[in-house]
């Protein structure tokens, strides 16, 4: 049984439906990537899993339990962490405070957790007293992922984590994400850099105009002629 699954999701932001009958799923210890052309509803589909839009149909299940009616906050409390694409750090707060805010809901000792994040992103440890707004784009993404990890999530959702960072930084970020996966967390990721993302993905969903077009393992999708032609640029 899949850990997190959204089945036959239909809905939008109040206007016309952006996603139609769309299904996404991710299991623990697995990286799932959602790719597709611009305006395909990738981010919207992910937000649907988080309860951030109005659904007309479909259901979301976490660990076998139906969470369709829950608010975003309740889902966060149940272990779903989300890294938005933009404005994903508290720019006026220090790196350390950003991490602490990630752990807001937890009342246990967070020092160990903080060390784990610092081990994952060593640069953050040296900058931990610095205000997040002063960091470079790549470092900010690290803070954003770190903040999300501080909730001790079972599912980590990332909305285009590599948007606007250099290829080198992107590779490093992907390496880190693989590391996170190894700790048994389910990772669902929307990506614009489809080829690189599918490279590290266990499975992938290709969405077009809000509907599932292809669903397969990352490797298979990369090998698929049609996917390559239409979505990976040959």
């Amino acid at each position, binding site marked *: 049984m899949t850990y997190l699954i959204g089945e036959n999701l239909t809905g939008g932001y109040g206007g016309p439906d952006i996603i139609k009958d769309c299904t996404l799923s991710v299991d623990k210890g697995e990286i799932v990537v959602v790719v597709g052309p611009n305006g395909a509803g990738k981010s919207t589909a992910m937000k649907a899993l988080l309860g951030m839009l109005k659904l007309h149909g479909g259901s979301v299940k976490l660990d076998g339990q139906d969470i369709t009616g829950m608010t975003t906050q309740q889902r*966060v409390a149940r272990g779903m962490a989300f890294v938005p694409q933009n404005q994903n750090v508290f720019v006026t707060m220090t790196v350390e405070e950003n991490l602490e805010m990630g752990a807001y809901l937890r009342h246990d000792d967070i020092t160990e957790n903080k060390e784990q994040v610092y081990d994952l992103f060593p640069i953050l440890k040296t900058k931990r007293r610095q205000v997040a707004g002063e960091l470079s784009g790549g470092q900010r993404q690290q803070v954003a992922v770190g903040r999300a990890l501080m909730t001790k999530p079972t599912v980590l959702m990332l909305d285009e984590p590599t948007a606007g960072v250099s290829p080198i930084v992107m590779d490093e970020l992907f390496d880190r994400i693989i590391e996170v996966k190894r700790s048994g967390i389910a990772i669902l990721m929307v990506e614009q850099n489809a080829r690189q993302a599918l490279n590290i993905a266990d499975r992938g969903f290709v969405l077009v105009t809000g509907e599932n077009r292809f669903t397969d393992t990352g490797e298979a999708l990369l090998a698929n002629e049609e996917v390559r032609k239409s979505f990976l640029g040959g």
Partner: protein
Amino acid sequence: MDYSTDLLNALVLITNYVLIPSISYGSQLALGAVGVTLVFGILRFANFAHGEMMAFGTMATIFITWWFQSMGVSMGVFPTALLALPFAILITTLLAVAIDRSVFSFYRASKSKPVTFVVASVGVMFMLNGLVRILIGTDEIIFRDGQKFLIKAGAFKKMTGLSEGLALKQTQVLTFVLAVIAVLALFWFLQRTRTGKAMRAFSDNEDLALLSGINPELVVMVTWIIAASLATLAGVLYGLDKSFKPMVYFHLLLPIFAAAIVGGIGQPLGAILGGYVVAFSEITATYAFKKFIKYIAPSDFAPEGLTQFLTTEYKFAVSFFILVLVLLVRPTGILRGRVL
């Protein structure tokens, strides 16, 4: 008399009429402006009812003070109002939270435009304005008791042999000391505690704060509690220093807004700086420098007029002028606040 005495006299003069009043008035504005800026940072609207909240808190303090006085309770040399203050803060806080629950929370839930909040706050302003007048009337009330002066002008002259006196009112010192304590406590709260950090996070990035599991209702409630407490403190200190008159508190709104914007909206530290900037400018611009120039100018030169930049009636203009200047030159305020 030789020139060095003249210089000393000039210094005393400026301290007495500009420096000391500016510091105490600035502290009062600062406390008010911090409340405005916090409400703005968290709830994202300019609260027009803030002046009336100050009036309400002061009124509550006065009633409790009277009650204490009637029972013979006092604090010796200190004003009895200080004893009443905590109770008044409690009452004002309850009122602020009640107003939020009954008026503002609805618009929050329906995600209304900021300007709707402003209009609603005007309605609240009306209600509080009427309420205060109904309960206590419109007359000027002096509720200060205890020792009035720490240093009396006459005693100072005798002590130093200077021809200029220096008077230091107890309320001025109290204002400054209490303001410093309040501000330090606030910063400790914002920088060191979990809830304080959550408030800063919420002010910084509301969506991300929600994704981190921060409870918005808690943050909003704490914001109102702090704003109401500081408003009461500011109002009481202002009333102790001068007097209590409901009308005056409405007019404080403008310098307080000016202070908050000058400092950078959403920035508590900026609001404090802004408070002093506005107070200093207001008092300096309306002070008659005639005597001062007489002291520092060589020999018998004396300016003809009062050498006052503006008459005291135009002190609003000073706050406004500063406001416009900041808007034109540095819209983010001194400390890079949010641009409205």
